[in-house]
């Protein structure tokens, strides 16, 4: 790897070794080629953006990384593990969490329970212990509740703790979605358009939360976002996809001046 040193926004934050690499991934649905021979890598603690016009295969890329889709060709390496064919819950166990473009909250559950559910894979007590809810089961529940409260505090969701998630306004639902993903203490967080449909203030809040998560919790971030200003502002490196192919990869400045990228975006805006 001879990737150039990326510039840093914060002093003290160390972008580390490559944590995820995507190698020659191709994915097709029937005849539709969603991804063609895409390769890139993500370094530990960095903020990595995937951009591209509509239908460029961005969401498919995230879905491949966390095992929702299984690519026909290519492989993925996360930390020391290689795989092509992995179920989403296995990805979660490995430390990959994600949020969804069309918020996929558990609408019938409270905000607290939504975020608690994010910690499910860390909870161990058996069925009988849970049914009796004594001793270790209750202790475990309380310990995790405490962790979840930290996330609620972190995302400033205190007033909504016991509100049913489906009843929250859109911007807050997005925040809960992020909270649920963070609750699993992921190594890497995939964010699918975290700021779509938000107003300026909500976007600023969300940026702050993402950067804080990256900075304070050390979470590696891979995000898809349409708002170019945001992408250029917060990401360390950017991958550009167009029609399922990678057309550029580099720092925000490099990408901004890339001819292929400019053309792809001009072409898409017609």
């Amino acid at each position, binding site marked *: 790897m001879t990737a150039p040193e990326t510039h840093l926004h*914060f*002093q*003290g*934050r160390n972008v580390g070794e490559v944590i995820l690499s995507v190698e020659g991934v191709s994915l097709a649905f029937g005849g539709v080629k969603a991804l063609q021979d895409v390769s890139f890598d993500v370094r530990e603690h960095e903020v990595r953006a995937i951009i591209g016009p509509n239908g460029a295969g961005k969401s498919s890329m995230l879905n491949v990384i966390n095992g929702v889709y299984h690519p026909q060709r290519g492989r993925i390496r996360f930390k020391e593990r290689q795989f092509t064919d992995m179920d989403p819950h296995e990805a979660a166990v490995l430390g990959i969490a994600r949020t969804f473009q069309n918020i996929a909250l558990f609408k019938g559950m409270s905000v607290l329970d939504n975020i608690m559910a994010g910690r499910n894979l860390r909870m161990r007590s058996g069925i009988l212990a849970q049914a009796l809810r004594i001793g270790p089961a209750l202790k475990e529940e309380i310990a995790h*509740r*405490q962790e979840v*409260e*930290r996330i*609620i*505090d*972190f995302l*400033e969701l*205190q*007033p909504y*703790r016991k509100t049913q998630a489906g009843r929250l306004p859109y911007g807050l639902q997005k925040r809960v979605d992020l909270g649920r993903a963070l609750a699993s203490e992921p190594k890497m967080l995939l964010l699918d358009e975290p700021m779509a449909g938000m107003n*300026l*203030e909500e976007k600023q809040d969300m940026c702050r939360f993402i950067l*804080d998560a990256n*900075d*304070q919790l050390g979470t590696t971030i891979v995000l898809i976002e349409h708002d170019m200003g945001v992408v250029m502002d917060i990401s360390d490196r950017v991958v550009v996809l167009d029609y399922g192919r990678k057309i550029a990869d580099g720092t925000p400045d490099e990408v901004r001046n890339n001819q292929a990228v400019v053309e792809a975006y001009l072409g898409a805006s017609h």
Partner: protein
Amino acid sequence: MAAQAGTLDTFPKLLLEHARVRPSRPAIREKDLGIWQTWTWGDYADEVRALACGLAAHGVTRGAHVALVGDNRPRIYAGICAAQCLGAIPVPLYQDAVATEMAFPIQNAQIGHVIAEDQEQVDKLLEILPGCPSLKRIYYDDPRGLRHYSHEALSSYESLIKAGREALERDSAFLDAEIGKGRGSDTAAMFFTSGTTAAPKGVVLTHDSLIDRSRTIMAWEGLNEDDVVLAFMPPAWIGQNIFSYAQPLVTGYCICCPESTETVTADMREIGPTYYFAPPRIFEALLTQVSVRMEDASALKRRMYRYFMGVARRVGARILEGKPVGLADRMLYNLGDFLVYAPLRNVLGMSRVRIAYTGGEAIGPDLFVFYRSLGINLKQLYGSTETSVFVCVQANGQVKSDTAGPPVPGVELKFTEQRELLIRSPGLFKEYYKNPQATAEAKDAEGWFHTGDAGYIDADGHLKIIDRVKDVGRLAGGTLFAPKYLENKLKFFPYIKEAVCFGHGRSMVCAFINIDMDAVGNWAERKGLPYSGYTDLASQDAVYDLISGCVEQVNADLAQEAELAASQIHRFLILHKELDADDEELTRTRKVRRGFIAEKYATLVDALYGGKHAVHVEAKVRYEDGRTGTYSADLKIRDARTLPVPGEKKAA
């Protein structure tokens, strides 16, 4: 305890006493991470001791000033006490002040150490740091967002505590000695008054004065360690500070800090304080909320509510005062209590309130009676920063809606010829910090404090305040003009948030109105009126009609009072923007700065008196995200119907 009272003459000594007498009773609760985390008196003392040693290790010495800026957090209160342990003087600052406002106190008091709540406060402090050479250290409580701040002045509260614990381990006698050196006559704390006209003044209060007033009230009201207070006003305000710092340390009751400003209502419902103090505007806002929410209720419920509120108005206050009430009315009231009052107290979080105070400014009589009739023992008090709050407090069972009650033990009152109230009390302040001139103006040689308030003692011996001496004016016709009195009457309507009345030296009274966005917005939605924001809503004719109705009702009331009948409001306009403390139109305690407003909006005032029906305004508007823009439009002016003054009586 009475026997030891002589030795317990400072707050740190009181704290240690509580830690000894009731170590496992709750002292401070804070809703954090979803539950009410509790410090017992023992924990409180531990924290304070460690913190004091930390501060000492970092160079805080006797007589130095230590600033504390933040919301109600246990650590802020611990900081106050820790400074006092060392004989240093804590200076609580308003957490919502902008950076420039913070600079003055820090420069004035040569403050070297600040304990700040979070990044927001740290940012402000760092901004003014270049202009404040005295400021050496800033300690932050919440590290969020501060990880990459590398300013040398900055360190965490945690590190301070750690340093303190280490120092304490090395030498535990040092602190006890320091505490022992404290004397009641030492300065306990300094509060900067918001200063409606001039620069803020640092009011210096001694342990003796604060402790004396707290003890007096404890005895007067029968407060005890089971009482609970919710601390939700700025700790830099003496009103909050004495309730959540001085009084609990004297009495041993528990204070509770809400989780965040958005959750105060919910937190109040959970905690159910027994002892409550809020300025009238809070009670006003609560009542507005009640009215608005009741208007959404079903017709049947609304009728029930109106009926029983009528019953309550008739007999509620009398029942609360233990006066005789007919059996039928008493039963009706009991039914109303089951159906309306008790549930209402519950949703307001006031079920357990034994004593509630309001003060700081006059409260509308209707507003006051509303709470009393619900069975909430709301009383008025009179006092200020300079008097350690408690001067007059209404006694249980002798509550009148338009007075501040009789002087509490130890207080002497007298009036000047201009009806200005003078006070002598053990609670009086020592001086204005570094301001001998102001001190001399306010406190004469005989120790009388000149309050600047105009008023008199009524037949029952209760203090009645009309207005500020300098604000009480005369209409051109020579009759009395008390603007605050009028404004309060207007503000009693849920639709009116602020009012500014003009009339001194003029032939008639005119007013600026600020509508209440929540109440009027709700009203507009029910009427199906579309609007885009405050400015748009405020300019609608229907809203003018609504406000017009309110003004005319005030006029009808005023016409009943001989002295004030001439003060009926002839013309008014609804301001295009909300009056804002950030624009200096209100004080930090949200008092209207009438003079400033009259100057700033002189063209509007001229238009009111010039008989025009519209006036063009162009104004800079500051949006919430900090950007500014210009607003330009015509403001409408309305004539309000007035009633004939009784003097010129017509057909009976």
